[in-house]
């Protein structure tokens, strides 16, 4: 009963909005989230919940794969360090409100100390701890080795290495040229562009949330919800044929998922206008093409005109930075938008030009 509920809640249709909402709550109430009490409560709740998860044979069979251990370590570290960063930020923000300035800027912390022994001993300690950790990990868990390579027999599901599973999960919503090439390229380019777009001089060299709320929200949303969350889905919740399986669900190869996704052109020309698809390719996809272009060409200037946030941003960073920033944000948001369109309208492609391998 309860397991059935967890299975249903894990479906991206529900868990993605939940993750986004949890993300919103985390940042909205980051001072509560960043308390030690909150951390203790979370750990206190997570331990029995995790035990309950592990007790399930179906979940355990997924988790025990040796290559899935790094993902568990990743999740624990991402969880801890997200809390820790916001914990430090909450302390600093309270201090800044009281006029004390961030803790890193106190005269005591600005004081210079000798690298020997202060720094080298920290490094030595970190190296020893890391070595011990790796050795213990290596002794407990054997490196995986499966059957010899067989090009004629593909395992199902065939998964990329875990750090690319966010991209593989994007394949559900985008074609490979977007999910595998254009969007990763934009992630790398966008990351490099961050320092040149973010002109806010505050928050340089200390933890804070309040002074850089927009930059941190945008970055964390991409990193936690669109990257780490999708990896979790890709690793734990995608079984044969990349079908969704709940954490307590057996990976039944014969699970049939009804899918009748339709393209925007079909919705408009056939369902709404009742004419049928035009022969001309561009004519057929004209609505999708207009919509996509409008999305990246009209929204940025409209946002700068119509909203105060946009107006201030444009004024503060200048037009080149503003348009690059908006372009990156719009490309980032294209993923959740595509997800929602898929779930609400079973929409496959906004622009469907398989003749040109150009599907959006």
């Amino acid at each position: 009963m309860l397991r059935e509920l967890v299975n249903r809640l894990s479906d991206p249709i529900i868990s993605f909005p939940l993750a986004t909402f949890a993300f919103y709550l985390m940042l909205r109430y980051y001072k509560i989230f960043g308390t030690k009490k909150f951390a203790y409560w979370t750990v206190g709740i997570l331990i029995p919940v995790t035990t309950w998860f592990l007790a399930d044979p179906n979940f355990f069979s997924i988790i025990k794969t040796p290559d899935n251990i790094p993902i568990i370590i990743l999740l624990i570290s991402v969880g801890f360090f997200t809390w820790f960063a916001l914990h430090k930020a909450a302390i600093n923000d309270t201090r800044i409100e009281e006029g004390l300035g961030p803790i890193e800027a106190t005269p005591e912390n600005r004081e210079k100390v000798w690298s020997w022994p202060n720094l080298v001993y920290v490094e030595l300690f970190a190296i020893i701890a890391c070595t011990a950790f790796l050795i213990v990990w290596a002794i407990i868990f054997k490196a995986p080795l499966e059957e010899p390579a067989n090009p004629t027999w593909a395992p199902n599901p065939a998964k990329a290495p875990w750090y690319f599973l966010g991209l593989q999960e994007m394949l559900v919503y985008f074609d490979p040229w977007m999910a595998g090439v254009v969007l990763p390229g934009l992630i790398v380019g966008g990351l490099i562009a961050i320092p040149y777009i973010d002109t806010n001089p505050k928050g340089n060299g200390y933890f804070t949330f309040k002074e850089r709320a927009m930059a941190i929200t945008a970055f964390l949303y991409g990193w936690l919800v669109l990257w780490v969350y999708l990896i979790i889905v890709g690793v734990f919740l995608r079984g044969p044929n990349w079908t969704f399986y709940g954490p307590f669900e057996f990976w039944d190869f014969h699970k049939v998922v009804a899918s009748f996704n339709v393209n925007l052109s079909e919705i408009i020309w056939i369902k709404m206008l009742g004419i049928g698809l035009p022969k001309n390719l561009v004519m057929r996809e004209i609505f999708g093409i207009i919509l996509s272009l409008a999305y990246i060409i009209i929204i940025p200037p409209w946002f700068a005109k119509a909203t105060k946030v946009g107006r201030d941003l444009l004024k503060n960073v200048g037009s080149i930075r503003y348009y690059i920033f908006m372009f990156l944000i719009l490309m980032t948001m294209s993923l959740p938008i595509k997800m929602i369109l898929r779930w609400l309208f079973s929409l496959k492609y906004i622009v469907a030009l398989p003749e040109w391998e150009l599907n959006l």
Partner: protein
Amino acid sequence: MSDKGIAKQVRETQVWKSIFRHGPPDNSRNRAAVIAGNVFLHLHPIKLKKSGVQLGYTWCMGGLTFFIFLALTVTGLLLMFYYRPTAEYAFNDIVALREHVPLGIMREIHRWGAHAMVITVWIHMFRVFMTGSYKPPREFNWGVGVILLVLTLLLSFTGYLLPWDQLAIWAITVGSGMAKATPFAGNAGPGAMLARIGDFVMVSDKNDVRFQLLGGRFVGEPALLRFYILHCVFIPLVVGVLIAVHFWRVRKDGGISAPL
């Protein structure tokens, strides 16, 4: 620090003095000398702001990433003695490593270390972002760091193929399959059909980026050799150079970030 008995006698030998040209680091002069006089330690500044040595501020993740990179270089070198990158031998060599080396954990350390490096590099980047350390004057070094992040993922990805088991070839098949969808440069990418002269197809599965990456139309022996060389020689060399740039710029841009 006490200097008595044997310890003191050792310190006064000609051998010791020839190696360590300064006295014990218990005064300012020698503490400066120990950092400045050692090729490895001189990566550090002689003095730094207190926040820069606090684990609560730095998380030490960048340093650990570098350390794991070194550990992977050493374990990887050891593995290279026993591994031949051919379809005939690769898998069997890994099996032999597992079965004929009692208590052998080099492959384990190498594999888990590779995963750990991906994690530490992500957390390092996260910390740098959360402390706004990419802001001027460190914009360029942030960019170098992003490239290093990509190279770390590529190192891990190319190494994934080398055991030549089912996990390896199919993970690489899925991953490299994306390359054929590259706009204009992949045979199934948008724009590829524009590159056509009459019946002659310029971008096909026999010459597109995926073919260049794999040395073939599927993950076969040429791909194994390519990934081996990329993994063991080419990418580590590039990473080594960029790490040097990265560390140099950390120093030149004012050391570990701190409030202005």
